């Protein structure tokens, strides 16, 4: 039992786990992830059976990779705990080693003064012993490695949290009121593809109301500026264009505006009406007067043209219309307007603790690494006979650091 535990927390086990993790990562970068089966069949005709069989199309979600990561997490946690428990002993050992050192670096009274002032300024703790004074670097400096390793564990835990608990869904949001699952509604006031200076910038102006009726107020979201509201985060994800058709029913005076993203029947009575086909961004007219549509432009709808089929009494007539045109079919009037751009909004739901854990771990990792590499972690005994230091790093490194404290150049 004890042997197993020792192995589980050993660095050898960590390094051993690292190899298959690296292999998986390399494979996962060579084989594009998450494509359709047909993609692999066409790109890797000889080996796509193998790719799909081994799950190389989703390496980072295979149980092998997840198990390796989990084991790595266990290894890291156990190792971090044992490092944490070893700190006091390391510190004590450094104090004794510094105190007992036989060969000391000589120290003039002036240097001693400079050194002690410098150490105090750096919050080194002073202890008076029988043989002399010993200074030890502040407690936190001894925990650099521990902080680093716990932080990486925290990141793994956060990643697991996201894997298991975070959900995203994408919605196309039309001008006006939009109902989303979970009783959330979004009212889109405006969507722009360019900012005032003409630069591409996708900006949705909208108001979100959550299930309890609480409103976010009118807010803007754009790429890089998502909106956090309640437990959700809203992202400006994509955009599309929709044809705009107003329907006005003569008999009742009822008016409706429809945003058409795909072909479909628009009808007031059920039978007669228009079969909406598409709206094209532009067109060209040749000398003979024939119109050819431009299927796609850079997203601008400079000269939009609508294609639709008028259906009345079973007679179908293919037609075109420009913004402003109206057609009357039976008892309704269909008016075509300028097409609109609409945003694709991504809604992400992630428990707040995951964000807290991740951001805390990120900060701790940077702080931990800084302590590991740039903090002095040592004890220095200062006597009339000279100084001696012990702690992290080679003797040469320590000597240079202490000399630097005294103002001696490195």
């Amino acid at each position: 039992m004890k042997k197993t535990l020792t192995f589980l927390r050993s660095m050898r086990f960590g390094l051993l786990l690292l190899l298959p993790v690296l292999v998986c990562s390399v494979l996962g970068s060579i084989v594009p992830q998450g494509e359709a089966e047909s993609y692999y069949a066409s790109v890797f005709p000889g080996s796509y059976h193998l790719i799909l069989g081994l799950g190389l199309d989703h390496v980072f979600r295979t149980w092998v990779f997840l198990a390796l990561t989990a084991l790595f997490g266990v290894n890291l946690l156990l190792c971090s705990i044992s490092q944490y428990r070893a700190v006091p002993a390391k510190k004590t050992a450094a104090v004794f080693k510094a105190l007992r050192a036989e060969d000391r670096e000589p120290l003039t009274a002036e240097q001693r003064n400079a050194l002690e002032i410098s150490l105090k300024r750096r919050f080194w703790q002073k202890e008076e012993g029988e043989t002399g004074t010993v200074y030890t670097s502040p407690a936190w400096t001894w925990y650099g490695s521990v902080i680093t390793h716990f932080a990486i564990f925290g990141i793994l835990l956060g990643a697991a949290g996201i894997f298991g608990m975070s959900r995203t869904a994408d919605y196309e949001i039309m001008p006006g009121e939009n109902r989303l699952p979970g009783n959330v509604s979004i009212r889109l006031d405006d969507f722009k593809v360019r900012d005032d200076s003409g630069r591409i910038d996708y900006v949705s102006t909208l108001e979100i109301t959550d299930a309890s009726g609480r409103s976010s107020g009118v807010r803007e979201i754009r790429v890089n500026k998502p909106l956090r509201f309640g437990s959700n985060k809203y992202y400006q994800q994509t955009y599309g264009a929709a044809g705009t058709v107003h329907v006005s029913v003569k008999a009742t005076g009822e008016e409706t505006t429809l945003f058409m993203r795909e072909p479909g029947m628009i009808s007031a009575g059920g039978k007669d009406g228009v079969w909406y086909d598409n709206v094209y961004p532009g067109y060209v007219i040749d000398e003979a007067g024939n119109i050819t549509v431009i299927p796609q432009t850079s997203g601008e709808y400079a000269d939009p043209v609508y294609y639709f089929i008028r259906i009345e009494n079973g007679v179908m007539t293919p037609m075109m219309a420009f913004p402003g045109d109206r057609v009357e079919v039976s008892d309704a009037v269909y008016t075509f307007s300028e097409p609109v751009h609409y945003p694709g909004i991504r809604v992400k739901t992630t428990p707040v603790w995951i964000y807290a854990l991740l951001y805390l771990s990120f900060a701790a990792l940077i702080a931990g690494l800084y302590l590991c590499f740039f903090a002095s972690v040592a004890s220095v005994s200062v006597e009339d006979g000279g100084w001696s230091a012990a702690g992290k790093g080679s003797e040469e490194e320590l000597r240079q650091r202490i000399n630097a404290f005294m103002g001696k150049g490195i």
Partner: protein
Amino acid sequence: MLDILFFGTLIVYFLAVVAHFLALAFRKEQIIRAAWAVFYAGFALNTVFIIARGVTAGRLPLSNQFEFATAFAWCIALMAIVLHRGVREPWIGALTSAAAFLILSFAALQPRKISELMPALRSAWFGFHIGSAVFSYSAFMIAACISLRYLLLQKSATEEEERLSSLDYLSYRLTAFGFLMLTLTILSGCIWAEQAWSAFWTWDPKETWALITWLIYAAYLHLRLQKKWRGKRMAVFSLIGIVCVLFTFIGVNVLFTGLHSYK
């Protein structure tokens, strides 16, 4: 004008490489000094070019392969020069100026057109993420140059122990700094990706290779600090590390497509 500055820098770096190799051949103090003077001049031109390009573009000039490579070469030169003030070691000038020249040559192969920044790149994290990557890659590059010097010196076998171990130590310190910077790059990238694309991590090839590089250097640090590896083995490790860095930087863009290739 920008092109003149750019190719001027490239030529001066090339002259610096030639001068440094001449200095190695003749070992004359004047030639060594001249070689460094040329390298300084290349660095100065490189600096002016980056500033001029930034002013022309009206933003940080770090948004594509060309701009990144230019900054990478600049940072290699900067670190080599800072190092040179404290450490006088033949070959370091030759190797680092060659590295700066090669990286800038890679830049020369890239399209130089100044393009509008796509919305996903307009973020406060932009400078931080890419700036730390430049420093990290450069530190790894200099560490690799020192490791190469170590291996060359070690072959001649007559060298004193102390000089070798100080090279070994220097390479480790640069690697440690590079590792801290790479960690900053990856973490700031995660935070930024979460703001721009909603996910901290998407396993796109650039991210995956940055992680592979990070893990390789983590292994390097553990073998050194815990297993007490030193010298030749660590120098070889450092060379493997820089191959990974260069693959992350160049190979990934050439071979794979993903969010980071901005094609």
